């Protein structure tokens, strides 16, 4: 402390004036870093006791019981992963083709209306998607989509319907999630496609390639980094989503056997139980443990996305 005061006293006013902005900005950076690091450390520290008591069983175990003090979260991890995978299967083709439409085929006027409309929809709160899925889509899934899928494709176990009278399940949750992340993936993929230098395309046309061949062989490969980064971003949003999933996935503690089955996601487990167990040390630590695992998965994806090269 004394050194710092001395440092400032030694400077004449002019010197101080020139150093001050630098120091102020540095304070901003340090504050941001401190907040972030404290937040991450807090999550992992609160989760530590459960890792110590459960060991690797915390991740591989399938039993979660407060009364027996056994906490295994494999079911929730797989639930989250399955749901995220189905979401991406639905969302990525749709958004990439929509992005192709916007950047390559759409008349200027149409793209000019569509682009900001899609951007605005990023702002629809997830809880709204949740009640929309619950009050509007669930009945449609229950009466039409689920029976149709299990009727036509039911011979594949992946599409069989273990609960014919219910619309909730992986497919419903994933459909809503897909709609939720569409705008993000479309906007970022389109940016990436539009960033492809026009000379590349001209060269392709000059060689006699058709418009589609140019898209497939020049535009998409060049933009692939951006599209992948967009996908990862959408994936992280899907994995981290809470409110809508609590309403739509079904919250049954088993690994979904098909896309029409119900499941349980990590985020849902945390939200459902944290209010009840926040004051009890061990269950709280277990719930923070789920958060820590989720966080760790997210950090890995961020690292992967940065490796791919696209700026998130």
């Amino acid at each position: 402390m004394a050194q710092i005061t001395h440092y400032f006293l030694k400077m004449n006013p002019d010197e101080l004036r020139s150093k001050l902005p630098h120091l102020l900005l540095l304070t901003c950076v340090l504050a941001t870093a401190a907040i972030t690091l404290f937040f991450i450390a807090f999550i992992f520290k609160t989760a530590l006791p459960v890792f110590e008591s459960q060991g690797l069983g915390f991740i591989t175990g399938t039993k979660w019981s407060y009364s027996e003090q056994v906490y295994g979260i494999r079911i929730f991890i797989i639930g989250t992963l399955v749901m995220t995978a189905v979401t991406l299967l639905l969302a990525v083709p749709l958004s990439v083709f929509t992005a192709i439409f916007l950047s390559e085929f759409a008349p200027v006027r149409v793209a000019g209306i569509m682009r900001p409309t899609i951007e605005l929809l990023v702002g629809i709160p997830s809880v709204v998607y949740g009640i929309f899925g619950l009050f509007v889509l669930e009945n449609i899934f229950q009466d039409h989509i689920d029976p149709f899928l299990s009727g036509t494709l039911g011979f594949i176990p992946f599409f069989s319907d273990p609960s014919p009278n219910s619309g909730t399940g992986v497919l419903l949750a994933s459909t809503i999630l897909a709609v939720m992340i569409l705008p993000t993936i479309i906007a970022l993929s389109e940016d990436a496609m539009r960033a492809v230098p026009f000379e590349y395309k001209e060269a392709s046309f000059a060689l006699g390639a058709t418009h589609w061949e140019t898209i497939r062989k020049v535009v998409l490969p060049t933009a692939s980094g951006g599209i992948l980064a967009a996908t990862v971003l959408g994936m992280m949003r899907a994995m981290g989503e809470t409110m809508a999933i609590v309403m739509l996935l079904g919250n049954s503690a088993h690994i979904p056997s098909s896309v029409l089955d119900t499941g349980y996601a990590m985020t849902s487990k945390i939200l459902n139980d944290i209010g009840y167990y926040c004051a009890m040390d061990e269950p709280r630590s277990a719930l923070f443990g789920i958060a820590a695992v989720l966080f760790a998965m997210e950090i890995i994806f961020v690292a992967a996305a940065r490796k791919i090269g696209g700026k998130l």
Partner: protein
Amino acid sequence: MNKRTLEGHIFKAISYIAAAITLLALVGILGRITLEALPSLSLYFIITPESDVPGLGGGIANAIAGTLLLSILSTALATPLAVGTAVYLKRYAKPGILVRAFGFLLDVLAGTPSIVLGIFGLLFLVYYMKFVTGGFSLIAGTIALTILILPVIERAAEGAIDTVPSELEEASYALGASKWDTVRRITVPFALTGILTGMVLGIGRAAEESAVVILTAGYTQFMPEFKVLPREGFLFGMKIYPFQDLTAALPITVYRSFEFPHLIPASNGFAAAFVLIVIVMLINAATRMLLWRSRIG
């Protein structure tokens, strides 16, 4: 028609269909929400707090005021930090491992699942820091949301600073301006459009968040108050309204219609959702217009 053109046509058709599906889904959702909202939507519903209506539901002025307070305060808190960080990283720091690590940290923060931030807020801000925040409160909600939107604004600011032509800054240096003068008079003004866009994104993100808000700000049927009352056990022995008081928010109003479908009509929830979407849209539109004006002028 040969195979190549046929293939082209097929994929062109697929693109058109994909775009149509996307647009249909999005417009369909908006349309359905509006339709479901209509029975509840009225001026009375918008300007009356829930506490003034008998029974549950019936008014959302408390939630509108709470959402505005939460999102504007958290953006006001996050912006200086975010812009300061962005300017430092882009103009002061020497590029290297530290800056890259910092970028990674911010990316991690940006991707944080909101529930993780929510339980952090619940345990640290609401329980442990109760004597400062007052438990479930506007401050607790604001701080948690600030952490949520900080990387959003920071990234927008970084992007904006990247677009500043280096010729301008070099010219400024050539004229003998100091680094701070250049940043203050050239870099930041030039990047202002991008920074403002980032702030709007931040406000929108804060306004739509539900998991974090329900775990930190709680919910109240009342309008925010502006007063100070003595209160034991609080910092300085007093409770400062509205900061240490509970705060309502529109997403929570929506969630309540799901929690109590037999007491609150579903149209109330959809109407709250509709108002929320319109608010975010208006802020967006107003900024766009403002930016457009300033660019012309």
